[in-house]
């Protein structure tokens, strides 16, 4: 590239100014940033918090407590959290839906949130549906000292689901058109 005169132009949220021959770029903190549903955060202690999100209009639970910091009557409660396992990568924050053999949601805690591998073990009947909300990629630590990611490698969190969801369980049919036991689970 040839040498050309270069100028800096500020844009939305950024201001460029020159003081004493130095260039300053001011960034304005956003006030109204949109936070999507299921927005996951984690702290250095390996606690993972899941933001407010709804499935079929219901807030899922972690250890019996609904996410989002409110119970059914609107009272403020302590926000439940998940513990990040350090030896699993990729490690998914997953939404789990449980249905009865007739296809209706189970009575107690039909929608829960768990953390671990995406595949749900021990579900031969297909009464459990799994949907990924977010995923951690982390390097496997080779010792048991501290949890800080900087010690052992990189930990990255990607948000997968950004919107409130609907869920339905559809009876599974084999290739000959016969009804099989279990359900296909759709989240949208």
């Amino acid at each position, binding site marked *: *590239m040839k040498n*050309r*005169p*270069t*100028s*800096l*132009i*500020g*844009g*939305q*949220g*950024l201001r*460029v100014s020159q003081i004493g021959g130095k260039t300053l*770029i001011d*960034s*304005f903190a*956003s006030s109204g*940033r*949109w936070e*999507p549903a299921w927005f996951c955060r984690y702290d250095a202690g390996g606690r993972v918090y899941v933001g407010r999100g709804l499935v079929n209009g219901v807030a899922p639970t972690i250890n019996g407590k609904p996410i989002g910091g409110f119970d059914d009557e609107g009272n403020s409660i302590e926000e439940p959290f998940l513990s990040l396992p350090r030896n699993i990568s990729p490690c*998914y924050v*997953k939404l789990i839906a449980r249905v009865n053999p007739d296809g209706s949601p189970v009575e107690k805690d039909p929608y829960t949130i768990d953390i671990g591998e*995406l595949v749900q073990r021990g579900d031969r009947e297909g009464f459990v549906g799994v*949907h*990924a909300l977010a*995923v951690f*990629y982390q390097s496997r630590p080779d010792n048991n000292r501290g949890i800080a990611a900087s010690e052992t490698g990189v930990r*990255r969190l*990607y948000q*997968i*689901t*950004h*919107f409130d*969801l609907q869920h339905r369980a559809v009876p*599974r*049919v084999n*290739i*000959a*058109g016969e009804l099989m036991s279990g359900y*296909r689970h*759709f*989240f*949208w």
Partner: protein
Amino acid sequence: MSRFVQPAFLDISPSGTALSLFSRSNNGFPHPWEALAFAWDKKLKLWRMKMRPAFVNGIPVLAEGSKGWLDFRDRQIAGNLAKSGGAKDEVFSERSESVKFPKDGWTPMNEDPWIPLRFGREIPSIEENAPLGLQQMGVNAEFTKAFRIDSSGKLRVDQTRLDEGSGRRCLALDLFLSKARPGLVGEASTSLDTLLVGQVVDYSVSLQTTVIDSRKDEADPTGLVSRLYQTVKWEPPVARDNLLNRITGDYADQQDDQLKIATIYAVSSFEKQGEKDEGGVDDTWTLLCKNDVFWNLNYDANEIEIPKQFANLSVIALGTIGAGSGAVVAGSILAPINSQMDAIFNAMRTQSPRGRFWSI
């Protein structure tokens, strides 16, 4: 819904280089498929692009690109080396402390591949298919008409138009997502060449469950992970399902589902005017990304029912000998007694394992 996405905007005007900035956090939520950065690859003489990682069914999409090429620290080291008289085109990796050239391969998007962009489509005029944003940047219809790709695929330059026109050229390419899936296959015991009146043809419909072999590699041994491809101009796949193919057993379904993700535009600098141009995109061009898809996706293929009686069907061929294959086909379809044949065709027409993408 589509918009231009660019965290910082580098553009070359006739008077010099202008770097325009805007804060990404003020510009909505940083969504998947967002174009994070464009970089010029000096070694291979092409532009590369980094996208915010996207997931299909919770699995990162595979993109063809080089891992870890020119990340920030590598660039610093390369810059220092260039200052001290080292090779300019080489990229050094801090971790391996050895020369590391870009090596393209299928990489999960969460490992931040630098995707090489191979432009090929000339936007002929703004009135036809260039977005308004390009018009405001100075992409000129008259000027772009001077560049034309002839029937042999070579770029022709009309010098008179080039001299008269003022403005910038624009090239484009499309990125699309492809997910492999099984397809329906019809098999007949005889070929159409030997089909006779009254002959019994065994016909069966089956589901091809093997995945395209070229999809199976180190990055994805199953071949079922979604991949991000690029093409000059994406068109929806056309199913090869005419009746002739079906009756001869030549019918095969599409074996993947596709979705257009984004269009990448490259706009030339003003300085191209009047100069002899070889038609290539170089480091003076400005790149823009127009997204069609903004969110992560879920995908599911149709679960189809092939009734058992379709597995091995005998069909009686009707028609006239020597009247051409078309007559044979038409006769057998129109014959009301060949209801089994009708049933097969209906099944193949209405039932397909074709799946759908939806955003989550």
